[in-house]
């Protein structure tokens, strides 16, 4: 394997070994502390145009599996690890991580002191980075001159509606760059799903006669999305049960007057204890958030805080007071990570059933 460099916007450079694709690429670097689930993380579109550094020292030990994709085509810009496992074993293994990254044209770099890198990123926050062959002045100039897009949702969300038919409740998923786990959990509950682009209007949604609406996860900064998304949320939240996740949660909060702040350090992992306020129970969930709802801007006559992160106190869940519209910041589908939050999907289904009334 060839020597390659990970270079950062602040001028630092790490020497490592390339794996995966030999491409040169640039993106915003973030670190993820999950111990397992690298396949789901790499394929999660919230990491669009980002380079992911894993703090777990060995990545790739169970290969790439048949049923752990969170998108069809991953759009991460790079994978940074300390050791990449050269041998991987798993009953469902299809490819090694190295093979998969080659297929998807994603460069990887190993032998990086990821502990040092994580500490550096914790202090600085995410910054631009490149995986390059030569760490010279030219490479740093190129990196400095690169402007990262702020139209991530448009790049990864579906441009056209598509169905995922089943025989249960009619659910519309508004796609901001969804992870497959959302569709998987709705499928398990027999929901008849229609996925609509994030530009869907209130009328388009109502015309499909949904029992419930899901606002999906997605990449980037919620303020970069058009105002029309907030109007759509305001128009449907009091008419149809609503469940918002990740970026959807941030938009739901914004639609109800709250402001979004940059989070530092960001949450990328599955190790934060989260308190469910109503029962006082502690849960763990996988998180991937660079932004959070500013608690001081929440109108308490409208919204109730339902989940709180116990490490930094950030808001992890909200609910509207007057109707069944609720949201979580973390990923309740447990792909990857703890699965104890999956019953929030049951809660959503039961809200829809209740809104429909009894079956007799």
């Amino acid at each position: 394997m060839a020597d390659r460099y990970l270079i950062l916007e602040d001028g630092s450079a790490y020497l490592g070994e390339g794996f995966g694709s030999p491409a040169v690429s640039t993106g915003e670097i973030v670190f993820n502390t999950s111990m397992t689930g690298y396949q789901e993380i790499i394929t999660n579109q919230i990491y669009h145009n980002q380079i992911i550094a894993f703090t777990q020292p060995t990545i790739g030990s169970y290969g790439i599996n048949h049923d752990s994709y969170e998108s069809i085509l991953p759009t991460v810009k790079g994978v940074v690890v300390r050791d990449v496992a050269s041998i991987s074993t798993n009953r469902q293994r299809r490819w090694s991580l190295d093979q998969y990254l080659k297929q998807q044209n994603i460069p990887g770099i190993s032998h990086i002191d990821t502990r040092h890198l994580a500490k550096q990123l914790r202090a600085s926050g995410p910054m631009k980075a490149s995986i390059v062959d030569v760490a010279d002045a030219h490479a740093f100039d190129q990196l400095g001159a690169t402007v990262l897009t702020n139209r991530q949702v448009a790049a990864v969300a579906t441009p056209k509606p598509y169905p995922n038919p089943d025989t249960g409740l009619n659910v519309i998923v508004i796609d901001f760059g969804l992870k497959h786990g959302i569709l998987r959990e709705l499928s398990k509950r027999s929901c008849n799903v229609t996925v609509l682009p994030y530009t869907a209007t209130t009328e388009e949604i109502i015309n499909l006669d949904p029992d419930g609406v899901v606002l999906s996860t997605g990449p980037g900064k919620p303020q970069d999305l058009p105002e029309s998304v907030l109007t759509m949320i305001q128009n449907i939240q009091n008419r149809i049960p609503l469940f918002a996740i990740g970026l959807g949660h941030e938009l739901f909060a914004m639609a109800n007057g709250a402001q979004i702040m940059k989070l530092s350090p960001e949450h990328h992992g599955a190790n934060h204890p989260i308190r469910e306020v109503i029962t006082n129970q502690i849960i763990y969930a996988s998180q991937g958030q660079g932004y959070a709802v500013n608690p001081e801007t929440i109108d308490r006559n409208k919204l109730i805080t339902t989940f709180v992160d116990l490490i930094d106190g950030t808001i992890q869940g909200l609910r509207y007071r007057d109707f069944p519209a609720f949201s979580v910041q973390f990923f309740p589908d447990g792909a990857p990570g703890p699965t104890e939050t999956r019953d929030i999907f049951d809660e959503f289904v039961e809200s829809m059933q209740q809104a429909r009334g009894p079956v007799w």
Partner: protein
Amino acid sequence: MQKEVVDSMAMKRALTRITYEIIEQNKGIRDVALVGIKTRGVYIAQRIAARLQQLEAATIPVGELDITAFRDDQPLTVAMAPVAYQLDFDVAGKQVILVDDVLFTGRTIRAALDALMGGGRPQSISLAVLVDRGHRELPIRADFIGKNIPTALQERIKVSVTEVDGHDGIEIIN
């Protein structure tokens, strides 16, 4: 034959959802009081009250009603006896939420309404039940329902709560 139709997780969710629905319908919890019908309704009322207190940081009065005399398996003469006022708080002006485990014929609820009204004029009374199993004999319906379970008349619904039965769950017995 017994079959568990609601497990402890689903029961927990149902109570959580009822709690949020109470906040939705009452526009908050001002003047809300919970009244549980013995035996299991009391524990369900206490759990809902605990949840409301978690969310709203306010104390909710919880009362207990014993309407054994009105059970359907009592002779008619016993069932006609008046039920004394049993609560340790005044219901006048309160938004009372009556809580029971199973809503069946509606006769229990009617008796409970009588008992409540004896104590003053609540601003409103609504009904929360963990299970609505149908087969009403009176014009009564629940405002908050944990689970609609369609049943045959001869079947029984058994609600278990940890405080009495050692575990949470709902079983259908036939």
